């Protein structure tokens, strides 16, 4: 489910806080569901709206302001925001591991001696495919999607064609945050989480995008599968401790050999 969220990261190149925003939405979902609504679905809807607004404000009032000042300032601003968020979470919720409980989390769709597929994993997969499908539609067939692609290809050219690129960045951020909210709930239902888990998701999300190629939706799917496989094989051959390491090393190798991604549009030129 990191895949969903990574898709938009590729477009908002340079954001370092996606991982922490996923965890923020995980906590938000948990709190809203437990305290206000009692229903996870309703909590998710509220979280999506809330995160979208937050994302817009962040992009519009913080990052767009430093966008013209070179590569480093936006990077450092997002880094600062990320550290800020994870420490606020730590302060509010403590360092304890938590999880979101619901009927789905403990049941299996198929359970036999040979295979068992848990309902959450199936849900993750279905949601991932749905979100990627929806994003694919938006990116390919709407005016908004076309202007996003134009902006990520060439900012100057897009502006000459009448696209307000900064506005586009802000709206893309809204979209990214909405999917971060969905990813957040799924993460919370699938794994235990604590305030500092964000880093891990940032690296995974970034890795998936890098392996697949920035801005390529199919590449994102492929990247997710490659990273997942690398981790599985690493754990199988070298022991469970090396699961993460295998993923990181594959990521570093791909970054070295083909920094623009395996299926990037740039390679096809």
């Amino acid at each position: 489910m990191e895949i969903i969220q990574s898709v938009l990261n590729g477009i908002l190149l340079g954001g370092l806080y996606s991982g922490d925003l996923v965890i923020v939405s995980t906590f938000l979902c948990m709190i809203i569901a437990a305290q206000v609504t009692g229903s996870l679905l309703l909590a998710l809807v509220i979280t999506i709206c809330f995160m979208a607004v937050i994302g817009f404000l962040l992009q519009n009032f913080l990052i767009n302001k430093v966008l013209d000042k070179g590569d480093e300032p936006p990077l450092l601003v997002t880094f600062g925001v990320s550290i800020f968020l994870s420490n606020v979470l730590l302060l509010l919720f403590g360092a304890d591991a938590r999880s979101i409980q619901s009927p789905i989390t403990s049941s299996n769709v198929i359970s036999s001696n040979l295979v068992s597929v848990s309902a959450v994993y199936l849900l993750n997969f279905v949601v991932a495919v749905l979100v990627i499908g929806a994003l694919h539609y938006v990116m390919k067939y709407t005016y908004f999607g076309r202007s996003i692609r134009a902006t990520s290809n060439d900012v100057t050219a897009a502006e000459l064609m009448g696209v307000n690129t900064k506005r586009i960045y802000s709206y893309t951020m809204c979209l990214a945050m909405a999917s971060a909210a969905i990813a957040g709930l799924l993460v919370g239902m699938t794994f235990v989480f604590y305030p500092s888990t964000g880093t891990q998701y940032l690296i995974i999300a970034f890795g998936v995008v890098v392996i697949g190629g920035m801005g390529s939706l199919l590449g994102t799917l492929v990247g997710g599968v490659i990273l997942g496989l690398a981790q599985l094989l690493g754990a199988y051959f070298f022991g469970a401790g090396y699961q993460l390491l295998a993923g990181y090393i594959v990521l570093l190798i791909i970054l070295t050999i083909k920094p623009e991604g395996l299926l990037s549009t740039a390679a096809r030129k």
Partner: protein
Amino acid sequence: MQFNFNEDSRSKFKWGILVLLLAILCTLPLWAPEYFVMVFMLIFLYMALGQMWNLLAGYTGLVSLGQQIFIGLGGYSLAVITELYDLPMLLGLFVGGVISVIFALVISQPIFKMRGVYFTIGTWIAAEALAVFFSNWTYVRSGQGFNITASYDLTTVDIYYIALVVGIGSVALVYFLLRSRLGLALMAMRDNESAAETMGIELYKTKLKCFLISAFVTGVAGGALYLSIAYIQPFAAYSIDWTVAMVFMVIIGGIGTLEGPIIGAVVYVVLKQFLYDYPGISMIILGVLAVAIILIAPKGIMGTLHDRYGIEFLSARRRSKDVESAA
């Protein structure tokens, strides 16, 4: 505005103040309370870390989030040398620097191929990978870590003098580095990379030199930090928190200035000590401060002071006299 009259007496005055300051710092343990000495020790060590991150991000354009690699290597070298082989502690610090340089050399090959954000994330991933690797490596006692017993015999004052040498040494190193040929090359690169390359500057070599220097000093400073912490464990040694500290210090003090990391280190350490019982809050304040500074005064405290009032204690620029004598 710079005052140009009486350049000679001005520079004598400046050196006088520096020597006096150095004398005060050298004798600090003789008259100051121990807590004070401890705070200054931390300031010096963080100053060295900040200075090295600044050398990369502020002068070379390499925004690394993987400096904790060298802190971890420095700390672990110290632990292995003193615990497993019973060799002297100072050798451990030195070996930490050397191993950091070797590792930097090895990863520079792939990592320099990445640009911008990729380099940033690449260094971070390398650090996370090392953390996982060390937590599975039985030679360094896996996730269990080491108690660095060699540091038990040391007093705060001993570590203070080590920190003093590392901290002042790092400032002096960067000061003279920037005034050397390498420094001129760096400034030319910062202003216009392709023009600099046309003038015969080897970009790759220049960047690599800075990367290796920063690895060495960060490794030694990391070892010294672990003398005062006295316990090392992989996920703390390779934690991003180290680099977070460097980033905040340098941004607040002033990125791309020599004095920036010094001021940043003072702000960082004092704030951390002041809010010692609430570790999260100091990071939240620093985060807000850093983001606000990037938005309002992107050059940090020192850069802004310099732009507005021409205040500069340690100039990286050579005056015409120096240039003539160098040429």
